């Protein structure tokens, strides 16, 4: 029957959390940066179209384009939130897995495992 070393357990938890979150965070940062730049360019393009009178005889079209831009920005924030939720899920489960393995090792028992 083994034991649990608190220092080792903390290190293992930190490593599991870092491993689970590290790649995701850099991916999310890259995605967000790319999206912000593209949305900025799209906004500038729409402003130019409006300024040049593209929608002078098509007010419904202008409202639709503005609505599409608004949708894209709203969906961007929801996508960021969704990606963050997935990362939180990975971190949470990685930590629980480390703790359960430590418990199994310390007690010599197969304690109820988290269901994947």
């Amino acid at each position, binding site marked *: *029957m*083994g*034991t*649990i*070393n*608190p220092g080792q*357990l903390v290190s293992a938890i930190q490593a599991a959390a870092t491993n689970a979150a590290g790649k*995701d965070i850099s*991916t999310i940062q890259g*995605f967000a940066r*790319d*999206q912000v730049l*593209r*949305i900025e*360019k*799209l906004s500038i*393009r*729409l402003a130019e*179209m409006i300024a040049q009178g*593209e929608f002078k005889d*098509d007010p419904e*079209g202008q409202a*639709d*384009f503005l*609505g*599409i*831009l608004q*949708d*894209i920005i*709203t*969906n*961007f924030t*929801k*996508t960021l*939130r*969704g*990606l963050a*939720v*997935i990362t*939180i*899920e*990975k971190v*949470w*489960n990685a*930590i*629980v*897995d480390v*703790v*359960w393995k*430590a*418990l199994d090792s*310390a*007690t010599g*028992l197969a*304690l*109820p495992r*988290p*269901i*994947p």
Partner: protein
Amino acid sequence: MRTGVFFSALSRFRDSPIDSTHSSSGGRHRITVLIAIVFAVLAAGFAGGCAVKLAPDYDKAIFDGLTKANQDAMVLFASAQSGPYSKRAAAYDTTIGELAAVQVQIKARATPTPPPLLTGFAVAVGDKSAGQQISDALEAPTAGDVVTLIRIMNAAKRDDENGRLKRRLDFHVEAFAIQMAQALAYEKALQR
């Protein structure tokens, strides 16, 4: 059931030595393991005894459906600079139909229920709207993405029909590409 198994294990632990090979430090080990078990109980309580699932499972059919609609839309936009609208009318309908089919698959996909920790927190703080806000926060964004993709295709179709597409094509193409990138980024992230 899970609680029963756990407490059974706990009583076995109580009746057995923790570390017989290190009897001089047995007390310290016993305390250490007890602390670990308390932590495990807390974790089990938080997780409801299960691995937390905050987002739906990856669905290859949805990812493939989005990819196909993306390809078809880009082919359609590439052909929009030449020839009359009548030659492209069917292609618009096909792409919009593909996106609508993906929307049906997204709506049919099971959404995980919020974990007890979050719902319990909402109850504890006494904020009825908190529960709804948590459910909203856990909702996959792809359904909204597809609604906007269909909106962009309909706007492009209308502009093409009215002879305005050539002047507005760059906006439609980039709007579609940005929105599709959001949808694909989330769906790909579900492949965990």
